[in-house]
């Protein structure tokens, strides 16, 4: 079996008296399409924050490509190859759509501006934002903001891309659009972790799914098995 790209072992995170994550362990193989589901407040975004470095976990270890990354600040982890999109889009509002992508190009990939602009336009074409390249990012619609989040993560040329509820509130055809992009990214060899509530997207996309509830992993396996699992159904419908 190939060495895992990302290995999370026994990770816990507390906020004061509240336990957001409790002894979470998982391993993701290179090239995998991985789904992460769970009801609101189960700790999905906290887990992502601990992996990306936005938060420091309290105990346990996180290894990326065989290296312990627990002590690294988020920008170092991004430079190592972990990129993420944010659940609530956080564009760089004072910048145009194109400029938003120049930031990771300059700081992660270290390209000259002219090369960076070229490659950024390619990403925008691929994701369907090319006409809006020079528009102020604070004037985009919700869908476009979601796409910008993904585009900005793509610009960091990651080996692991974490998509945090990129499809929330999108219509059926928009979900298909985003799924197509994620599939094509995966075809290029990028490992993808998808956090979603839209079950049909998770089912179609993931090769393996983990379900979180109250900071603990309650189930792990193939999508069909997970969805049929009674613990998972109970977690979503409430005790």
């Amino acid at each position, binding site marked *: 079996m190939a060495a895992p790209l990302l290995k999370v072992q026994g990770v816990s995170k507390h*906020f*004061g008296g509240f336990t957001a994550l409790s002894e979470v362990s998982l391993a993701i193989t290179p090239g995998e399409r991985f789904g992460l589901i769970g009801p609101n407040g189960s700790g999905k975004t906290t887990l992502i924050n601990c992996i990306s470095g936005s938060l420091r976990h309290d105990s346990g270890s996180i290894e990326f490509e065989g290296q312990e990354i627990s002590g690294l600040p988020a920008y170092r982890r991004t430079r190592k190859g972990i990129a993420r999109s944010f659940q609530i889009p956080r564009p760089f*509002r*004072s910048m145009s759509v194109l400029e938003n992508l120049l930031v990771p190009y300059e700081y992660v990939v270290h390209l000259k501006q002219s090369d960076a602009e070229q490659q950024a336009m390619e990403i925008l074409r691929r994701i369907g934002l090319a006409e809006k390249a020079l528009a102020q990012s604070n004037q985009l619609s919700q869908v476009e903001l979601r796409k910008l989040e993904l585009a900005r993560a793509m610009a960091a040329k990651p080996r692991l891309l974490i998509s945090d509820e990129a499809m929330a509130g999108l219509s059926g055809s928009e979900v298909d659009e985003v799924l197509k992009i994620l599939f094509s990214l995966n075809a290029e060899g990028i490992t993808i972790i998808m956090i979603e509530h839209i079950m049909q997207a998770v089912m179609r996309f993931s090769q393996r799914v983990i379900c979180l509830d109250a900071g603990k992993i309650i189930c792990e396996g193939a999508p069909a098995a997970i969805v049929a699992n009674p613990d998972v159904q109970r977690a979503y419908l409430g005790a």
Partner: protein
Amino acid sequence: MVFSFDLLFEALLFGVLLGCFYAAVSIGLSVSFGLLDVPHVAHPAVMVLGSYFTYVLAGYGLDPIVAGVVLMPAFFVLGILIYRFYYETFEKRGSEAAVRGLAFFFGLAFIIEVGLILGFGVDQRTVHATYIGSSLSVGDYRLPYRMLVAFGVAMILTFSLTLYLSKTFTGRAIKAVAQDEPALRLMGANPVAIKQWAFGIATGVSALAGAMLIIVGPVEPAMDRVYIGRTFCVVVLAGLGSMTGTLAAGLILGIAESIVLMMTGASWAPAVAFGLLLVVLGIRPQGLFGR
């Protein structure tokens, strides 16, 4: 340096009284900044405003504490207006307005200070009451009555507010809005209305704090600057959002300042709060009981 345990003990006693006073003047900030996350650097300035209004009312013969209580409803309304304005102009617009919110309160503090200078001049103002000027003798030690009065009012204020926040429905809603605003919204409560109410209470409390300020000593318009240090030191040392921590933090600051006062005189004492604040920010920014 002659070191005497008597002096130290008296400094400790004075420090306890001073500390409770500092806790009381900081409790408004504990709510507005600690719980509501409003960058209210104008809090001490509003308090000093309360001191001056107390001075004016005392000029009509009102006892300072009574004056402070009388001012509370007016300051409650003032607080609501300030929060409303802050919310509409800055908080609603998101984080890029954070700089502007901070600059706004800085400007507000400055305007209050200069306004007071224009209205009252830069000289110090004091009030007179029967309990100001004399001391209680306890054994070999002398405790100024004005400090005891401030201590008493401070304790009442702190405990009432803490009880209010933990026992009443509105109080608990205020604490809830600090921790989990979306959950509160789901329960049907209006977070903005709650925050507004809380800020009003915090400002109303500042009126009484201002009255105590002028009881404890003379006031001048620039006093808000040193109190930025003292109040933020207490709130940060306590840990944002902790009411009981405010008392503990106040005591620590009061005793530290009192001891420094005893050892080096009045020139270094004002810097203690700022120094302690920097130490806390450097070593343990979440404070003693932070969330």
